[in-house]
């Protein structure tokens, strides 16, 4: 570890603002880019499951009549 204290890590001899801002503006979009397709996959998967249940239950109804 190069720095002596947490506040030294935060300030980085006056460059802390620039360094932390650029890391925040990198990791935020990176996280969003990972999260969006994962969420879309999950939603589609749930949609397919719901659709299958709907079709299955209609079959059961038709047989019982």
């Amino acid at each position, binding site marked *: 570890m*190069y720095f002596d204290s947490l506040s030294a*890590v935060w300030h980085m001899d006056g460059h802390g603002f*620039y360094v932390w801002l650029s890391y925040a*503006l990198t*990791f935020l979009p990176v996280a969003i880019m*990972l999260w969006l397709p994962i969420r879309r*996959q999950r939603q589609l998967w749930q949609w*397919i499951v719901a659709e299958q249940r709907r079709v299955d239950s209609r079959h059961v109804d038709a047989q019982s009549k």
Partner: protein
Amino acid sequence: MGSPPWFFRFSGAVVQWLLPITIGLLLLGAAWGLLVAPPDFRQGNSYRIIYIHVPAAVVALVGYYVMALAGAVSLIWRIKMADVTMRAAAPVGAVLTAVALVTGAIWGKPTWGTWWVWDARITSMLILLFLYLGVMALFEAYENKTAAARACAVLSLVGTVNIPIIYKSVDWWYSLHQPASIKFTGESAIDSSMLYPLLLMITAFYCFFALTVLLNMRAELMWNHREANWLQQMVRKV
């Protein structure tokens, strides 16, 4: 290999490993660059932005070739999967280019005293961002998606002209942006205590690119094949 069921299964297995590896490498590289690496003797601590700026820029350039190559494959062999790859790469490349531009601007402020300058490297990177956004917008502009994919492939292929220009810009028009510190041949102009975390972060960003493209492709395939038998059966098994 172009078969969606095969790809879906294969990419599922890859993603399962690549997701934790990517997150781990990103966090490790960031911690190393931010906390462990020594400061630059001229720039002080602001140079730590290099650990995200350079990897984002490098992968944004390589990602463009991936997109253009997929576009070429789609044009020549009419493989549907190549279309999906091309479209999956565009937003990731756009985000990486934007990250390189934004972190570069933030780095420029304490180093050059300005957020922005119309330097050749920076301007050609801005053109790269517009190319990525252009491919994305062009696809949406067409009603006929086959024609849309063809137009996007042509645009991405034409845009490859910009990549060597970006790469060589720091040597051809030397102004504010510094030339490359890492060289494939000969000694790199950077100490190993700074080089190792940088190489780690470049690897992490490559993993991020591969992972996000795969995830985007999987989401796209699920949507396109939501009524296909193979996907229905796969969902039933789980």
